[in-house]
């Protein structure tokens, strides 16, 4: 447990090299997303079979292990041996906790279910593939079931066995950079021998289903999908709440409205809620005060917990109320002394909040505290003036001002917009959820957060030690430019993949096939029938661009003079696919080439000349069999055809115009008749003059 992170990383590498671990690739392919060793995925070729050892029985569901984004099924060990296990298949529309799965699979825990295997598997239950994780089956009953049946847990057992066991698990997870997020009575098992087993944490975004009472305020005020990855205090806080519930023998917040629980957390603090009315020893008081401290730096870590288990007494004071100001501020008829609580109420009552921040009440309230001059300055500067040109619907200047106020007053809390609240590192999941549920409100909210640089207001407060938060902030910074670009492969879809590295391609064409890499994507669309004649869509383009780490659209120098070609989505799509094929060294893709050639009819139709078009199409057909997309791109972007077409079209237009004028005139029968008549008259004059001349000459000759 005392190992440092480097040693831990080495262990992990060693485990990866261990053929007995997840490393087995005997029956499938293997790849690393973004060349990150933690984002490793292996694929099985055999239907319903994981790692060549576990057969998933899709007909036998295990609802007791189902989670919001995972369905559990029974598993048969192929060799009839080994521990009892179950499989959990993960929702394809949500990011997989891939790094966590890989890290956990490389380690064996005594008091937590172990991950035995994880693979992308062809499924017999549904079309396509699923991501299946084989998890050790926990024995016994859940702690919730235990206290329902037996009442409070023995304090000695709690102190000597349960708390140390879970504490060690939390500490080990922390070393691996993992927040469990599901430390609660429903996910911890107790067997007849008194052995504690913590359940899995990889089947849903961190803390998605965690009841509010277990969460810290920053996570409790965020939407469940936008809680983020959390930090070291999250699980210890949950352990404190868990211990209190077990000591009491019931969860006093069970069945209570979650918003009410949150309000009580603000008003009383978690410590008071969970410990009030429990008759406990002074030793336990120390534990709860340490675990449920309001300030992050006061929350106990493993060292304090170990010392406490060994019997050290800390004599801690109860957690202080989060009162920043002695004099309260009134909002909506209620007086608040806590900024966090005020901010939460501003968020809940958004319209009233917008009006409230337009007055100077908050600034005057803050200015009573002489240490907050910088905050006052920033609040005074806060106004809706950023990124107006990129504003998504339903977000005006006043909305932006309120969002800024909320962030400035509670910089460690989630980013909050009307009916939307997510921590920075939870924005990726929230975006995936918005796409999955087609929730345009949340989609627009995230667009507004990115385009208005709202994350910058929290950035300065992100501790450098919190790598997850730093990474999320950096990704969001990157998204500002990506969102602004309107080209194929950019926009909000691109942000989705930029913020969720382990999200499979969300294109409806490929969703069932669960593709994680460009190589897989190319091979799949080569084999699949295109949906509605579409080969590629916005999601796919964004996915490819993200995997290629493209910062701007593929530049086609040959087409510089032909902007209507460079911006054509078919050409852009072909350029992307071609680049992906070259980059991934994927072999021939003849079927995809044929489909692309068909789709390019939309592009060749830009050419005016039928002959040039046919010529171009014939040349394209010749290249199809080779299956090299760059050859198709080379032909379609050959300026020779375009120049010929342009010049020819100009000439044809002139000829057509002149002909049209002549046709109009020739169609007028009266005019034509008049012209003929006039010529007849002229002819008569010429004939008569000619005869007269001949006569004169003849007479003159005769006379002389």
């Amino acid at each position, binding site marked *: 447990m005392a190992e440092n992170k480097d040693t831990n990383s080495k262990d992990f590498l060693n485990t990866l090299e261990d053929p007995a671990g997840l490393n087995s690739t005997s029956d499938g392919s293997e790849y690393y997303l973004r060349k990150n060793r933690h984002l490793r995925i292996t694929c099985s070729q055999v239907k319903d079979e994981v790692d060549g050892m576990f057969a998933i029985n899709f007909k036998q569901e295990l609802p007791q292990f189902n989670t919001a984004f995972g369905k559990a099924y029974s598993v048969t060990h192929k060799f009839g041996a080994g521990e009892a296990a179950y499989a959990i298949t993960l929702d394809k529309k949500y990011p997989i906790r891939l790094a966590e799965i890989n890290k956990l699979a490389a380690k064996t825990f005594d008091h937590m279910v172990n991950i035995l295997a994880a693979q992308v598997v062809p499924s017999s239950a549904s079309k396509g593939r699923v991501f299946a994780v084989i998890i050790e089956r926990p024995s016994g009953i859940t702690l919730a079931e235990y206290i329902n049946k037996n009442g409070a847990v023995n304090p000695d057992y709690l102190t000597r066995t349960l708390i140390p066991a879970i504490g060690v698990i939390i500490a080990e997870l922390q070393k691996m950079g993992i927040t469990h997020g599901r430390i609660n009575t429903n996910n911890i098992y107790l067997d007849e021998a008194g052995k504690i087993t913590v359940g899995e944490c990889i089947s849903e975004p961190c803390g998605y289903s965690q009841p509010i009472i277990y969460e810290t305020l920053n996570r409790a005020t965020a939407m469940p999908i936008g809680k983020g990855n959390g930090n070291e205090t999250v699980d210890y806080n949950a352990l404190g709440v868990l211990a209190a519930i077990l000591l009491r023998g019931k969860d006093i917040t069970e069945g209570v409205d979650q918003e009410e629980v949150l309000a009580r957390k603000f008003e009383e603090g978690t410590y008071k809620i969970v410990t009030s009315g429990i008759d406990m020893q002074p030793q336990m008081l120390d534990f709860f005060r340490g675990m449920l401290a309001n300030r992050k730096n006061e929350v106990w870590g493993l060292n304090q917990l170990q010392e406490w288990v060994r019997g050290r007494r800390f004599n801690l004071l109860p957690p202080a109320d989060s009162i920043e100001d002695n004099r309260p501020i009134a909002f909506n008829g209620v007086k608040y002394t806590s900024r966090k609580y005020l901010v939460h109420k501003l968020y809940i009552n958004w319209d009233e909040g917008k009006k409230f921040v337009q007055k100077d009440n908050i600034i005057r309230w803050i200015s009573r505290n002489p240490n907050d001059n910088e905050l006052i300055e920033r609040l005074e500067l806060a106004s809706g003036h950023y990124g107006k040109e990129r504003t998504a619907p339903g977000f005006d200047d006043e909305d932006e001002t309120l969002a800024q106020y909320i962030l400035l007053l509670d910089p460690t809390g989630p980013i909050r917009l009307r009916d939307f609240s997510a921590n920075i590192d939870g924005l990726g999941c929230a975006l995936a959820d918005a796409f999955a549920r087609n929730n345009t409100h949340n989609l627009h909210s995230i667009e507004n957060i990115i385009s208005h640089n709202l994350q910058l207001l929290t950035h300065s407060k992100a501790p450098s030690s919190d790598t997850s938060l730093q990474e999320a902030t950096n990704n969001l910074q990157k998204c500002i430019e990506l969102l602004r670009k309107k080209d194929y492969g950019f926009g909000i879809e691109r942000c989705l993949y930029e913020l969720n590295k382990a999200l499979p391609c969300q294109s409806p064409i490929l969703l069932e096939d669960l593709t994680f890499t460009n190589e897989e994507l190319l091979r799949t669309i080569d084999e699949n029938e295109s949906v509605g004649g579409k080969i590629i869509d916005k999601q796919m383009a964004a996915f490819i661009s993200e995997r290629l780490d493209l910062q701007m659209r593929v530049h086609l120098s040959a087409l510089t003079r032909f902007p209507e070609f460079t911006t054509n989505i078919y050409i852009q799509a072909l350029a992307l696919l071609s680049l992906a094929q070259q980059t991934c060294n994927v072999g021939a893709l003849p079927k995809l080439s044929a489909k692309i050639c068909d789709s390019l009819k939309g592009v060749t139709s830009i050419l005016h000349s039928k002959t040039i078009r046919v010529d171009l199409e014939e040349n394209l057909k010749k290249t199809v069999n080779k299956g090299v997309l760059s050859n198709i791109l080379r032909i379609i972007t050959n300026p020779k055809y375009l120049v010929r077409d342009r010049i020819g*079209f100009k000439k*044809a237009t002139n000829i*057509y115009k002149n*002909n049209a004028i002549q046709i109009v005139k020739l169609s007028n029968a009266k005019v*034509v008749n008049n012209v*003929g008549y006039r*010529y007849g*008259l002229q002819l008569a*004059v010429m004939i008569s003059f000619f005869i007269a001349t001949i006569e004169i000459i003849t007479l003159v000759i005769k006379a002389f």
Partner: protein
Amino acid sequence: MDENNENNSAIIPVSSELHGISVAGKAIGLMVMIWLISISYYAFAFFMLGMLPAILAIIVDKGAGRFGSQTISACNFIGILPFLFDIGVNYEKSIAATEAMKDPYTWMIIYGFAIIGLMLIYVLPNITAIIFTIKAESKLKRLTQEQEKIANEWGDQVRNF
């Protein structure tokens, strides 16, 4: 007959616009008249009577180019010219002029040519009008086919330019 002159010239360019009898023609006519007055009043009278259809045509014809009066004048002149030569070469010019005037055959010849001129301006324009109409129809057909061909090759967009 020349009301659509401007349009017509746009379709088929005319080499030169004729505005009645040219200066040279007028000069010749004037010289002939001076000559006839100088040799015999009878000869002059014969000329004036002989050229009566031409004089009437010039007075009546107000159309641009005055092709009709030019044609009648030229034909009338063709008819009278041999008699003028006879008078000119005779020693007794007045007697020759009187003799010619007395002969009905002379007037038949002179006015007959004027009638031929009149026929020319009635027949020839109608024939050429028919020829032009046939040619225009043929050209129209060819141009329409060419337009179709262009549109077929270059698409409907070519029609919008």
